[in-house]
């Protein structure tokens, strides 16, 4: 699947705005993302496995709230920085 990386996290991905990953669930995809770019997951997911307050994750058009959500190979995942104010 494709994963879109927001600008705030591209210091981890060598400025790539999109990476290709595998994973049967959102949790597996994020684990794969962190293996490839160490440290990136903790900036968006807390140590209690919850999505951080100003991060949103969409798969295709649907927002996901649960890391156990299943993913398909053809899905596109969007990590979005939202609503943090000035």
């Amino acid at each position: 699947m494709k994963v879109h990386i927001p600008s705030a996290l591209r210091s981890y991905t060598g400025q790539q705005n999109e990476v290709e990953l595998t994973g049967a669930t959102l949790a597996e995809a994020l684990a794969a993302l962190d293996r490839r770019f160490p440290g990136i997951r903790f900036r968006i997911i807390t140590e209690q496995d919850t999505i951080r307050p100003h991060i949103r994750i969409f798969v295709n058009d649907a927002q996901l709230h649960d890391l156990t959500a299943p993913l398909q190979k053809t899905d596109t995942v969007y990590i979005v920085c939202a609503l943090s104010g000035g």
Partner: protein
Amino acid sequence: MKSSPVILKPATGPVALLVGTRKGAFIVRSDRARRTWKLSAPMFLGNIVHHVVLDPRDRRTMLMAASTGHLGPTLFRSTDAGKTWKESSAPPAFPKLPESEKGRAVGHIFWLTPCHANEPNAWYAGTSPQGLFRSDDGGNTWRSFSYINDDPQYREWMGTVQDGTPDGPKLHSIIVDPRDPKHLYFAMSGGGVHESVDGGKTFTTLVNGLDVVEGFDPTTVTFHDPHCVRLCPSNPDRLYQQNHCGIYRLDRPSSTWVRIGKNMPKKIGDIGFPIVVHPHHADTAWVFPMDGTSVWPRVSPEGKPAAYVTRNAGKSWVRQDKGFPRSNAWWTVKRQAMSSDAHNPVGLYLGTTSGEIWASRTEGATWTCIARHLPEIYSVEAVALGR
């Protein structure tokens, strides 16, 4: 603790100010005379930087506590006095709990303290919400320190996010006795002051004598809100504290704080965030009062900024406002944003909520603005950088 006078040699040479702001970090470097200052380019622009601290054991390693409006907390490390930085591979984080239990997540890292001089590469960190962490590898990896992060009694004293300061309750003022690495203090907003004499195996509360907000019970530790606690390097048996409810001094082995802020001018009061101790004279300390009346404006009283100094351990205070604006200066100084160097005479430095840095080469007698138009300043640490 044994009391023995500690003789520290005054420092000489250039001073560097490590400045944490709401939008990044800066280093401001002086010449040898501390007369001219040069502001660096921003580091990690856009990051919320609560604290930047130099390791006094090598004078080259720095840690920076950072987060952004969107992203979770992290720590950056430099081993070349701030020229280059790397991210910690395991920043402070609470243990993962089962979903049936409500585990906590670190919102931001607030306070950094190098461990004892005999513990190279070891650091403590305090977080929001309140957590105490330790690294033994120069800040690369961190683990919960002591038992307090998960202790039911401490969790009760820590309260909830609603009980804490507006941007989250904090663990701060982590202090290591320079004579004994096992003798530790820390403070929590809210949650009181705590001491360990066995390297963190056990802690006891140190809140006797401290006032709390009117109408609340001072024997309830939760209600105590120490803003900043400092130990005197020249007499490690003496602590000063700026609290939400006054200015205090504690002389060990006593465990009862004395409200020395009652000797402040009544129209100024004794509310504020920072307190700075003289590096060589334990009777001397500085505060920077703010307006703590009615809705707590948290600005300089009457818009007239001033430091206050005591040179007799709090028996009396002297106003120090020469150089500051005479009126209409509606800013204040946060708890980590006022510090001293170790020169003779001591240099004092403060960063304002309006983004200015003020310096005094005369122990507060006169003040000069050395940088302006910065973001809101959260912390200022005065250091002597190694070469």
